[in-house]
């Protein structure tokens, strides 16, 4: 507060920018409110961005970030020199698309079902249970998945065996993993999604349903012609927000569930796991930085596009 007083009395340039004296006062107060956050972001987010330089250097521990030799785009040339870059990009995008579609559809369905029985006492318990997967980390979840899918005594293979189907080595069959990961992600995220959509449904004017019922509309017709159209804006906004993040994969899901199995990389290796491996297993800091840089730039483009679209639909929902 004292700081603000000092600044106010200082110069006229500020008045020029902010307009009237009163506006300036307001703006400076607002700025002072934002200041702690701005400073923290500067320290913990912007200062380390010096590290983006590493993507263009051959990082050597003894020489540090500034002292290491420049190599131009060599790290990127190498990254794109093999099909790895293409593969991790494809997997990240495809899997995230799949997640968005499946999770939205399932969340909407569950929200509609919850709404059907909303007055029931059970609903409270359903809502609680839907959040339980949130408390189980991917590391722990990976042990269940292993107990289920392991070739050596896994539960699923025992069942298949009982049905006369020959056992499958799941951890060696990359073709099944998009489905497995989608299911796991659904299990983890559907609770949150369905609660948000349930909120949307509860927000719909009940008069609309009443009127429809008077006209003899069936349950399905009510869902089809009232619930869905009314929820559409919410669905679109949430989807666009998700598209904005489409270039960032859930590291825990993609790293722990497939147990970092090289044979599964064709379908499970995503940008985030690749960056981690370059860093930790290969100790190649420059390569990790290059892949991270690539992810940021393309992700940035995606968000700018998504934001542009959101803004056209409803400026209130835009990110910036």
């Amino acid at each position, binding site marked *: 507060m004292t700081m603000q007083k000092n600044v106010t009395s200082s110069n006229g340039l500020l008045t020029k920018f902010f307009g009237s004296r009163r506006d300036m006062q307001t703006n400076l107060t607002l700025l002072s*409110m934002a200041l702690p*956050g*701005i400073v923290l972001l500067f320290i913990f987010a912007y200062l380390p961005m010096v590290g983006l330089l590493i993507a263009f250097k051959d990082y050597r521990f003894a020489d540090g970030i500034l002292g290491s030799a420049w190599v131009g785009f060599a790290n990127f040339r190498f990254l794109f020199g093999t099909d790895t870059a293409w593969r991790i990009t494809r997997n990240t995008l495809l899997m995230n698309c799949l997640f968005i579609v499946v999770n939205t559809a399932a969340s909407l369905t569950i929200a509609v079902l919850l709404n059907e029985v909303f007055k029931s006492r059970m609903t409270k318990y359903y809502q609680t249970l839907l959040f339980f997967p949130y408390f189980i980390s991917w590391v722990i979840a990976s042990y269940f998945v292993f107990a289920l899918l392991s070739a050596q005594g896994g539960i699923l293979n025992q069942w298949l065996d009982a049905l006369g189907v020959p056992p499958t080595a799941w951890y060696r069959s990359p073709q099944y993993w998009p489905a497995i990961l989608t299911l796991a992600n659904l299990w983890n995220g559907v609770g949150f999604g369905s609660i948000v959509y349930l909120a949307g449904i509860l927000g719909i004017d009940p008069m609309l349903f009443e009127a429809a019922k008077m006209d003899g509309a069936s349950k399905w017709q009510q869902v089809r012609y009232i619930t869905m159209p009314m929820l559409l804006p919410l669905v679109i906004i949430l989807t666009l927000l998700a598209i904005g993040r489409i270039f960032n994969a859930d590291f825990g899901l993609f790293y722990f569930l497939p147990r970092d199995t090289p044979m599964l990389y064709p379908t499970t290796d995503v940008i985030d796991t690749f960056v981690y491996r370059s860093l930790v297993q290969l100790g190649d800091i420059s390569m990790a930085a290059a892949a991270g840089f690539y992810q940021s730039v393309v*992700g940035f483009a995606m968000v700018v596009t998504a934001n542009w679209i959101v803004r056209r639909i409803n400026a209130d*929902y835009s*990110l*910036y």
Partner: protein
Amino acid sequence: MTTVAQPARVQGAVQARRKPISWSNLAVHLVLIGIGLACLIPMLLVVAVSFSDEQALVVEGYRLYPVGFTTHAYTYILKNPQQILGAYGVTALVTAVGTLVGLFICALLAYPLSRQDFKLRGVLSFYVFFTLLFHGGMVPFYILVTQYLGLKDNILALIAPYLVTAWYVLILRTSFAQLPTELLDAARIDGAGEWRIFFRIVLPLSKPVLATIGLFYVLRYWNDWFLALLFIDTPSLYPLQYLLQVLMRNMSVLASNPQTMGEPIPTQSARMAMAVLAFGPALFVFLMLQKYFVRGITIGGLKG
């Protein structure tokens, strides 16, 4: 976090559709029960396995009930109870301080960004948003915190980096922007300053979304072990998740290199017991607060 009155509209919707149980409702319940079980069973498995006998697990596999009931896994982990208790303390402190301070700073940053008449709105929104995507990487972050901020082996290093999270700021901003402007304008005409408006009107009206973001903070601080991996060396400053992570990793290293004959390490059950110790308290808090939380999302969800 206090009780929030449910909007009349929502209650109306409930009232309007009250009717007797029907076959279709029963079907809906069955489906929901199925989904609920899919969420519940893994949780039960964790608990059951944590009380199972290691050898029996190998032979029989995971069961929904403890096979060969034993608390060996817990006695193994709690061999050093002060350590676990200390870790709970560190985590509780970090979570409480981080959540309160973080929520406050984020809200303070989000509010100006929600104001149409704030001249720096566009620039600062972008300033916040940019950090969502561009990261400098682990090494420069480490150098900054240890060498320039001098926070190595300091509990502040577990709190400060997560205080401002761009994603939360953007959600809060969107939510604040939905508040009825008439209220704010009226207060301004009455001569209230921005700080007063923020504390007296904006924050109280935003309890649901604050509760939601608050829970995100709680979970984030509670579950974090990454910052400790980077910055903490003194065992007495280990937060819970990191301690469990370290115990788990050490267990497999030690098991692979036995020079002395000790009791066999109950790796599988111990892993699950650690999960129980880690999520148990968080789950308890969630169950206590879930009324507000679910409502927070329910109402916050309407507003994106």
